[in-house]
């Protein structure tokens, strides 16, 4: 299992079987992005700063495609997807405060890093 990390977003590169088992299957949960209409595949959106971990498909190879696999009631562009697939060509994920990362084609599971707030006494996902 390979791991790519951009700030608080961790992307685990997994095999197809693992990806299928750990993401939702219906079409309604899949949102596709390419160089056409849907161009900005947002993997994580920072509500505090407005910064985004995203793939701008316009800057990618023409054949490249990204499909976000959303969770129940989750909205692409706002919520963090369960995972995503990169097809046909590698893509680059960018963020305002972090250097870009090149992701090879494959299946990815997305996790947001967590921290423990000792002062509030609870565990939470890091807010960007």
């Amino acid at each position, binding site marked *: *299992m*390979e*791991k*790519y*990390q*951009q*700030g608080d977003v*961790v992307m*685990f590169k*997994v095999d197809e079987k693992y990806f299928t*088992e*750990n993401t939702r299957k219906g079409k309604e949960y899949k949102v596709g992005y390419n160089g056409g209409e849907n161009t900005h595949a947002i993997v994580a959106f920072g509500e505090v700063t407005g910064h985004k971990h995203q793939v701008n498909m316009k800057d990618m190879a023409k054949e490249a495609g990204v499909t976000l696999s959303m969770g129940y009631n989750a909205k692409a562009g706002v919520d963090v997807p369960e995972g995503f697939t990169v097809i046909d060509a590698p893509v680059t994920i960018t*963020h305002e*405060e*972090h*250097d*870009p*990362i*090149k992701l090879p084609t494959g299946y990815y*599971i997305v*996790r947001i*890093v*967590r*921290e*423990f*707030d*000792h*002062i*509030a*006494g*609870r*565990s939470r996902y*890091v807010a960007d």
Partner: protein
Amino acid sequence: MLQTETSKSRRALCDDYQAKYIVNKEVEWLIEHGNVREAVYFKGATGDRYTIYVAIKRNKNIIDFHSVYNSYGYGTSVGSHIGILRGYIFEMGVSGRSWYSGTGYTFKQLMRQGIMSKKHPWTIRYCRSAHFIKLHDGTEFSPWHGMKIALQSGVLVNKPNRVSVTDYKEAKTTDARIRKANALSNKNNKEALERYRKAGGDTKAARAGWSNGRWVQGVQGAVSTRENGKIDWDMIPMDDIFKHRNGTLRSNILEHYGINAVLKTLEHDVVDIDFIDGREYKLLNVEIPDNSTSDRRSDKCLYLQMVNPSTGEDHFEGVANVGNWNAPKEATVKEALSWRDGDRDMIRTNGVLPEIDSKDIKYIKPITLT
């Protein structure tokens, strides 16, 4: 209820009996008029329903008290001998110091059944780590195995033993300490809330509670009561973080000052240092004061200190303390990073975590980290 193999007339005699010294008239009737081997029994009060207390007349002067545990699911088990009534002197025969099965607890249950002086009743309460019995003459002590108490006069017949004295003193000392700490923590919390309100902060919004029959979570993030929507943070000192009880209010102040500024004011030691791809990571044990709760004066808490590889900024993040639920198993940088990134969650199959020792889960080093 009286159980007897004798005729109904004895039952009627017991029913008609007017007790003079003991609240439970059936036991007093057994002392005064019961035959040898005659018994009375009563079911435990609310919270003690599965226990049956049996008093059996052993001879002319002695009545034995037994408890029998009875439940519908598991039947009736053999009981234990819990005390003796010698004339009107009751002697506790139960040892043990746990609150639910020790002398104090059993004595309390017997009191609830009326094994108590009618004219000179006493009280019992559980305080911190021991039961306290207070007699009508003001004497207070912790019950012990072998304690003798006169049911007619309501006085203690023998002196408390060492165990009783130690238990009583310990509980009293703990109680005094906790009461003092509670008072201080209440004061701290009250003053911190007042400062927060004066600065324009909304303390009600941060509080979870019932509203129209629904449980409503507190609003995350600082909410102001002022028209301009701002909070005057200069009126809220940094150490109010450790005085508030409400986690959201603490987080709001922390959000304003930043964890880096707060940690600089606190004592800490370095638990582990590691280098990953040339980047230095430190695991710190930070002494966090807690003035908002009664018994926790300070806590050692783990924090990961790292450098943002893209900007070069120093950065702190809290890590769950070792030993807690769903926390790292060891206080090392790699364990902390593995917990932070959720590496353990990645070994789930169909959402189910296999049963393996989390020590076997190693930190997955990122191919690229920015």
